[in-house]
């Protein structure tokens, strides 16, 4: 399946969604956070079954976190982007759809303090055992001691 075809399928299923194909084999989808699990499940049905990673961006000036779910299929890549408010950083877990997302969800939970709702394993992943509560090193307002 070509990248343009996936973009067309998303447009058909969710009319009005901001889908961009900046170049060959690359798709960007901008969706509201409520649609996230539905979108990933829809993509999974189309054969986009592999999650490469989840990245987060702390856009502190606009007071939002941006989350990008990077999925891939047949050398193509698709990034599903959502934005969540910085004051209440909560996203639902996508492990029900993509079990491989667990490690990445734990990572952004550690590094950004974005709470992942109903995550199967909420334990710390990367930070040291004695790490102080409520400090998130990859947030822009974190000060290194």
């Amino acid at each position, binding site marked *: 399946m070509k990248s343009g075809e996936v973009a067309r399928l998303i447009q058909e299923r969710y009319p009005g969604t901001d889908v961009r194909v900046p170049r060959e084999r690359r798709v960007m989808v901008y969706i509201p956070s409520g649609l996230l699990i539905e979108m990933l499940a829809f993509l999974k049905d189309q054969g986009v079954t592999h999650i490469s990673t989840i990245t987060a961006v702390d856009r502190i000036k606009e007071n939002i976190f941006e989350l990008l779910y990077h999925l891939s299929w047949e050398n193509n890549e698709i990034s599903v982007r959502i934005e969540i408010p910085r004051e209440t950083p909560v996203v639902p877990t996508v492990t029900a759809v993509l079990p491989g997302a667990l490690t990445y969800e734990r990572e952004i939970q550690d590094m950004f303090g974005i709470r992942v709702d109903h995550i199967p394993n909420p334990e710390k992943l990367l930070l*040291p055992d*004695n790490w102080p509560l409520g400090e998130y*090193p990859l947030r822009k307002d974190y000060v*290194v001691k």
Partner: protein
Amino acid sequence: MGLIDWAKKKSPWICHFNTGGCNACDIETIAALTPRFDLERFGILLKGSPRHADVLVVTGPVTLQSEERLKRIYDQMVEPKFVLAIGVCACSGGVYWKCYNVKGGVDSVIPVDVYVGGCPPRPSEIIDGMVQILGKMGLEGHVIKSLEGLAGGQ
């Protein structure tokens, strides 16, 4: 020369601990020990337990996770004990200096006797560091002489 000095001179055993490095310094340390450079022929053996070692060889920046472990390993060693910091990360933190999970160099946790810079240092530089450790032990004689030859002209 007493028996203890003699034994020390013949067998300055080392214990190696990576506090969070990238493995490059570890590879160079092993290269210094294995036949190409062959520190082992001078009795400098790599030991698995800090209780058997005279010299603690530390590579890598000290992360918050390894800080307690490094302290504990150092405390387990018997006196007299020496610490050799290998690589710029172990000396000062290197490129990881002021990283959120890095405490700093080895000397921010335990006293260090000899620093070997480099990223990673060559085996000859590690041997030179070992020579200085032996000098600090107050040892003279053929071991240091032959080691110096090794460090200088490899």
